[in-house]
């Protein structure tokens, strides 16, 4: 069964769908997160009918207690050493997630250009939000209307839109 570490970018995007549990469950595999990434996933944006923007707190405690995502930490000197080395180039949450992924042979879910580049340079597999959404739609057999509604929530609440250089950019564009 595949193991994935979600970094803060993807975590926020998935939470913005209001179908966090359904999406991760639908794709299958095990999902993990490091504490600093949880701490960075703080707010989403809500927009009222009058166009006023408000912040909505992200609460992942239920997802954690129900085992949708597991909290992991560095558990060996090797992981800690790699974490500190990577922290020179990335923030702590990104560096720790990547270090653990590297040593445990897991993949990293991130949309960050720099994190992707460094992950590939140390042979860690990367998956992005558009790829995760496409995998979910395919696995569960989600219809176009629901896909469209879910992707628009990511754009609205997490302010995320993939760039043209993202994998599955064309798939995403089809629904937005």
């Amino acid at each position: 069964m595949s193991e994935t570490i979600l970094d803060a970018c993807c975590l926020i995007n998935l939470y913005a769908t209001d179908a966090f549990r359904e999406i991760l469950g639908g794709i299958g595999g095990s999902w993990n997160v490091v504490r600093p990434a949880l701490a960075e996933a703080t707010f989403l944006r809500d927009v009222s009918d009058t166009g006023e923007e408000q912040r909505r707190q992200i609460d992942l405690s239920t997802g954690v207690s129900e085992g949708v995502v597991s909290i992991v930490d560095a558990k060996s000197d090797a992981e800690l050493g790699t974490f500190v080395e990577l922290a020179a180039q990335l923030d702590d949450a990104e560096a720790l997630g990547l270090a653990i992924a590297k040593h445990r042979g897991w993949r990293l879910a991130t949309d960050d250009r720099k994190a992707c580049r460094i992950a590939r340079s140390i042979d860690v597999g990367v998956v992005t939000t558009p790829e995760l959404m496409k995998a979910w739609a395919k696995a569960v057999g989600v219809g176009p209307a629901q896909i469209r509604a879910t992707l628009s929530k990511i754009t609205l609440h997490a302010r995320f839109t993939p760039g043209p250089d993202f994998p599955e950019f064309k798939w995403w564009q089809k629904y937005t």
Partner: protein
Amino acid sequence: MQTEESDPRVIGKRLAEARKARGLTQEQAAEHLGCSRPTLIAIEKGDRQAKAEELAKLASHYGRSIHEIVRPGAQPVALVPHLRAVVEPTFAAREELNDAIGELQRFADDYRELERIIGAKPVGVHAPTVLLPKRGSLKDFAEDVATRERERLGLGTQPVLHLRRVLESELGLRVFYWNLPSSVAGMFANVADLGFCILINRKHPAERRRATLAHEYGHAVSPDRHKPGIDYLDGNGRKPQNERFAEAFGLSFLMPARGVRRKFHEITASTGDFQVADLCRLSNYYFVALQAMTLRLEELGLVGRGTWDMLKEKKLRARAAAKELGLQPRGTRTTDPYPERYKYLAVQAFQMGRISEGQLCRFLRSDRVTVRGIVAQCTSHRFVDEGGEVREQCLLFEDSLLQH
């Protein structure tokens, strides 16, 4: 994965600065780490490379991320000890002030780091210094210097509504806004390889912030430019000459004598009077506090001495008066913690893939979703197409316009 930041001397220096900013002694830090003081000294000097576990433990104890300690770049600027040395010994809110000093140091380090990442050359301070006179009126001298500065910047006698932007882009000053104890208006320090850095109390109203900024500008052109300083709202007793100069310079710069006199005469010529409403309009026009405007008119002999005291006694409320007169706020009232150039450097570094989203959040002191909004705001522009439709276009900072 060895990188230049692995230099143990730089890491040691950052650890030492972080420890001092936290107010901890070497003994206390060594005890927390479970090592001897000489071992900690060796780590801070860079004679002994800290192990990953030790770095994690120390960073957490100092309230810093590991990234802050081990990231690439030069040694940290040593602002903390210099600014702490000028804190008034009896100052009550010392802890809050120390936090702000630490924040100014972090901003200065981050600014230098962004310039390094982008390869941008630091902007020098383009303000000539003056020698303060030993004889004659200091106020008149400050007025002359302020007039010269206005002429040099091509500002004429108009109000300077976007003061922060002018000081940042035309003079190369680095202006930051952060929380300071209420009785502190601002602070300044000259940082090697970066220039004149100013921290303004963002808790104060916009008009007060502008007055402080203009005051700090006065320090930037005075001979004490190279010494750090903290400006309190109410200094006890007679202030030193450099403070009196900065104060007079700031007021003259914001409210130039020639311009104020002309406006005053325009009003009195057309109405035959100068009423409280006119005073409110004038303070709104120059984007200064009512008190500052009144005292300036007193100083220029346009209204009688004691006018402000009389208005104070009558409990004139500036905000209520402005509302009643329908005066719209002027100029920029935003309190972005960092200069515009700093923000654009950070967004550019992110767009180029040189910093991650997490690093961008740290540079911009904000959460992920807010930061995504800042990126979108900086990199998109709206235009009206030929069919009259409003469209939005995304700009890529790294696109060359010369090699097009």
